[in-house]
């Protein structure tokens, strides 16, 4: 099932719904990496507000996606990790190390805007 990828200015916004299968995640991974190039995106926001479980495979896939996006010259922010999901990730011993996170979409967008500002010479 497709995951909507929305282009907003120089960013892509990916709204991850709950209950993605492993195959859905792999398809999503390819789609994002492809679209970063097509739209010359500088940032990718992955909104996981609706995600109710992040197991070790999901965490690893998000880490892979973030690294691929970085190799394509853009930044990733994961937003909307629910408190109970955060708790479970830590208990599981999994990690989203190396990926920027923000509370919600608004915070994620201002984080990317700040990065853009810093990258631009005065």
């Amino acid at each position, binding site marked *: 099932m497709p995951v909507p990828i929305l282009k907003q200015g120089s960013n892509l916004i990916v709204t991850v719904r709950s209950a993605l299968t492993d195959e859905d995640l792999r398809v999503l991974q390819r789609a994002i990496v492809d679209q970063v190039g097509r739209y010359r995106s500088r940032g990718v926001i992955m909104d996981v507000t609706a995600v109710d479980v992040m197991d070790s495979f999901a965490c690893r896939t998000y880490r892979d996606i973030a690294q691929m996006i970085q190799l394509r010259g853009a930044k990733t922010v994961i937003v909307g990790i629910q408190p109970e999901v955060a708790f479970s990730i830590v*208990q599981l011993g999994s990690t989203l190390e190396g990926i920027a996170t923000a509370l919600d979409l608004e915070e994620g967008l201002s984080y990317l805007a700040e990065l853009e500002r810093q990258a631009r010479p005065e």
Partner: protein
Amino acid sequence: MSETIRIPIDCDADIIVARQSGRQMATPLGFSAVDLTMIATAISELARNIIMYAQRGVIELQIQQSNGREGIVVCARDEGPGIADIEQAQRIGYSSSGQLGLGLPGVRRLMDEMKIESRPGKGTVVTARKWRS
């Protein structure tokens, strides 16, 4: 003992069916949102282990009452290659598939109890319980 729900695990979509069934079964027991998510995450890891190591198997879910406590029992069964060294499999960082070394120790931390029974060539049964606090 209540009735057992059996979820055949055969492909990655079954992992989601299993963890959603677990959440559904545990919700009426009055678990907190954090506990429900930990149970669903543990089921996800156990079902994933089945796919990864044994290709197919089954997740069994049951409500259990014991000494005035109520909880959920998750049992992951497969007839795969089995685990030669159970102690090693429970150590952090160990993974014979070379993929993720945190499956079983992670499940142990998410749940209250975990037991592994396995013999090489005879499959594996992992039983994990979580009691409502």
